[in-house]
């Protein structure tokens, strides 16, 4: 009975049993990539491997992580392509990942690959915290441009800031984890208490704060650099701020699920994920990718971007994720009355 129920939970919401169009092999890929990236990545892989079709299940980081964990005893995904390394490490702690050294993994920067031999996961690119600051609304409201995380707690920004919810968004969690690591636990929570006073909303996804800032809905959105640069290029009246204390960051990474029934095809995808053509795709969206020498300069991202990333202890961030989220929820979700 116990086993059955676990299996039942494992299958919930995946709808794996739905009849599928038949390519030679269909790989189920869980991903937290942005929707506008999935299209290009999928097309590139399928062009290189015409007999493999990718079936993407895309959701925000928190939802995909919860889904993978709940399916632990009956995994539905073959490959995870584009999920926060901190989340993959949690899966690894549960023994859910398959060891595999993709062809060409030696070309990657070793910091961006799991330390185990053979590795359990391989990095793709870095994404990091960035503040989107709407200049038009700032003038209207007389808001100075913030330069640091500390600036955001100033009373002048009360009700002007949005950030992603750390439980559902990977971008939200990397902020929280970086503040705790940079400032130390006590000061980190104190900082978030103060920030909470100024916070207008916690939203579902990491992109939304920047989109809201770009639309002037709230002048300041804590988001990440890809979305900021993309919106700025489209003509949104925003400045991108890289707070001087350091940027929280995480790796997007790839891993094969243990027990995948399409292991050969899954390995092809893992190989593709570390290949040069794939890195060139990532490079279009991110300033730092796992393969050295691929990245080009994005006009909206500073040249010393890599140096601005905060020191990040992935193992700590992964191990304490659940406890941190619980504490976060206790502090900021259960208040007796709405703030305003």
């Amino acid at each position, binding site marked *: 009975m*116990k086993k*059955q*129920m*676990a*299996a*039942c*939970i494992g*299958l*919930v*919401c*995946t*709808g*794996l*049993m*739905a*009849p*599928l169009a038949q390519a030679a092999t269909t790989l189920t890929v869980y991903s937290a990539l942005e*929707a*506008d990236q999935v*299209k290009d990545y999928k097309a590139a892989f399928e062009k290189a491997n015409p007999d493999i079709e990718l*079936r*993407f299940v*895309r959701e*925000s980081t*928190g*939802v995909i992580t*919860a*889904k993978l*964990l*709940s399916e632990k005893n*009956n995994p539905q995904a073959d490959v995870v392509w584009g999920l926060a390394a901190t989340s993959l490490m949690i899966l690894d702690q549960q023994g859910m990942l398959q060891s595999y050294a993709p062809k060409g993994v030696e070309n990657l920067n070793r910091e961006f690959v799991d330390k185990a031999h053979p590795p359990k996961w391989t990095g793709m690119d870095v994404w990091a915290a960035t503040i989107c600051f709407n200049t*038009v609304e700032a003038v209207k409201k007389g808001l100075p441009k913030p330069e640091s995380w500390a600036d955001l707690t100033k009373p002048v920004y009360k*009700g002007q800031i949005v950030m992603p919810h750390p*439980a*559902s968004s990977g971008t939200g969690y990397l902020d929280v984890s970086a503040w705790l690591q940079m400032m130390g636990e006590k000061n980190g929570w104190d900082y978030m208490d103060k920030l909470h006073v100024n916070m*207008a*909303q*916690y*939203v*579902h*996804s990491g*992109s*939304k*704060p*920047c*989109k*809201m800032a770009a*639309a*002037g*809905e*709230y002048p300041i959105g804590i988001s990440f650099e890809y979305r900021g640069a993309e919106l700025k290029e489209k003509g*949104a009246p925003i400045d991108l701020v890289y707070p001087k204390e350091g940027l929280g960051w995480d790796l997007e990474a790839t891993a094969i699920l243990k027990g995948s029934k399409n292991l050969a095809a899954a390995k092809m995808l893992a190989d593709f994920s570390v290949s040069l053509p794939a890195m060139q795709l990532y490079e279009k969206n991110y300033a730092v990718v796992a393969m050295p020498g691929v990245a080009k300069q994005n006009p909206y991202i500073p040249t010393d971007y890599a140096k601005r990333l905060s020191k990040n202890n992935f193992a700590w961030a992964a191990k304490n994720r659940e406890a941190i989220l619980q504490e976060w*929820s206790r502090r900021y*979700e*259960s*208040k*007796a009355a*709405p*703030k*305003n």
Partner: protein
Amino acid sequence: MLSAVLRWLPRGGQAGIAGEARIASLLLWALVAVLLLGLGLPLLFIFAKSVQDGDGGFVCLANFAQVLQSPGLLRASSNSLQLGLTVTALVLPLAFAFAWALLRSRLWGRGLWRQVGLSPLLAPSLMPAISLVYLFGNQGLLKDWLHGGNIYGFWGVVLGELFYTFPHALLIIMTALSAADARLYEAGRVLGAGPLRQFLTITLPGVRYGLVSAGLVVFTLVLTDFGVPKVVGGDFNVLAVEAFKQVIGQQNFPRGAVVGLLLLLPAILSCLVERHMARRQQAALTARAQPFAPAPAWLRDAGALLLLLAIGLLLLALLGVGVAASFIKYWPYNLDFTLAHYQFDTVDGGGWSAYVNSLQLATATAVLGSLLVFVGAYVCEKLPGMALGRSLLRFLAMLPMAVPGLVLGLGYVFFFNHPANPLHGWYGSLGLMVLCCIAHFYTTAHLTAATALKQLDGEFEAVAASLKVPFWVTWWRVSLPVCLPALVDVARFLFVSAMTTLSALIFIMTPEHSLAAVSIITMDDAGDTAAAAAMATLVVLSSAGLSLLLSLLERLLGRRNQRWRKPG
């Protein structure tokens, strides 16, 4: 299964009366089986799931205790209650005023105003929420009206829910108001009661049951809707959103089941109150009542017009602003016209295929559902004998009224996704979603069909039986053509409901079969508000288009089939 039975029926005709009874009972039990599958069993599984832990072990009431102890959930419950009471208190007078202006005045164009009043039915509950953001958001058109206030939160949700629940309240109150007895007003006038006194002592008491029942319906709808709070709720958390977060966001199914059961409570309570009232109300109406017709009075009509204008324009604004916003390039900085937001490829949610899926789902629900409902109502109303089966069928037909979509959706997840379920392979398919939609909206459809059938004299069946004509011939040659208008109504109701509903389907949807209404939420979550508005516009246009088409069809059919209703 049903269509197989139907195909088989005509040949059974030669079997005579004995065979007919067997076929009738076969039909009845087949219907009961379909409803048990689509309704009864999934509900049972919610109860089971709520007393298990994550791995399926029995934990008694531990989940309940855990939920009740968690401060976030307590706050969400009290928020939900507060919200439900506020919306109910506000929507009742509004809907009553609108219904009164429609039915108790002699204004020109009341039919059109009626359509305006019911127009929110065409839109998913997310539409008013998106419109509210464009109207009163921080970059909203009418932002200044709030004097520095903020639409995100309690009052934003209240406004959105007002729009969403208004037509439901309006329909019920209109029915109650139209049942007025002219003799009472006559007596009042003769006894010297002025208009105010007549209103207080005749009109209001006459609709009190309607008001209470509308209130109960609205309260339940508000408590179980998560479209509006998700978009304009901000930090204002409600139970329905909490159930969604537990199940979809954290994959915590037992806790989701507990929250689902909590949401079932008000619905069950409403049903009990409703039944109790229905019994008392029968005595209040007499067969000799004369229909009330308002006398000319220009002052009253002017007042009615003002009411209709005020409320009607508000409704149209909440519908129209979202539509308009979907064509604006980049609100608020570039107001050029664009169709770019209708290119759904680069946003989450499944894009155009989600829309096509929704169309397929709605069409299948309308066609299969109205057939099923009509056969079911016929079996309930017209066939002799089989008392046990018929009362079981009746009970199952009325059950969906007490089950919020959100709860039904959870039940489907627990039941159909159980690996030991032989129908497991069906999970995630369009067919299952069709079943879910039919079950969800069964009661209203059944009542419409049953009412139409009740108007037919039972003697048709008696004569048919004495002529040895089997019941399916009577059904096909007499009942169906006569009840065609009701059938078209049922089909329209099912189509529009399946097109706009969110609550049940969001839980059983898979990436292969994403749906339009659900994709609106996904897009809004990712911050693509304009694309969400575009998809909502598509849904509204399709619902409105089909309603119009069916109205035309109804007229056409009416001319051909309903001639008998006219005297001479």
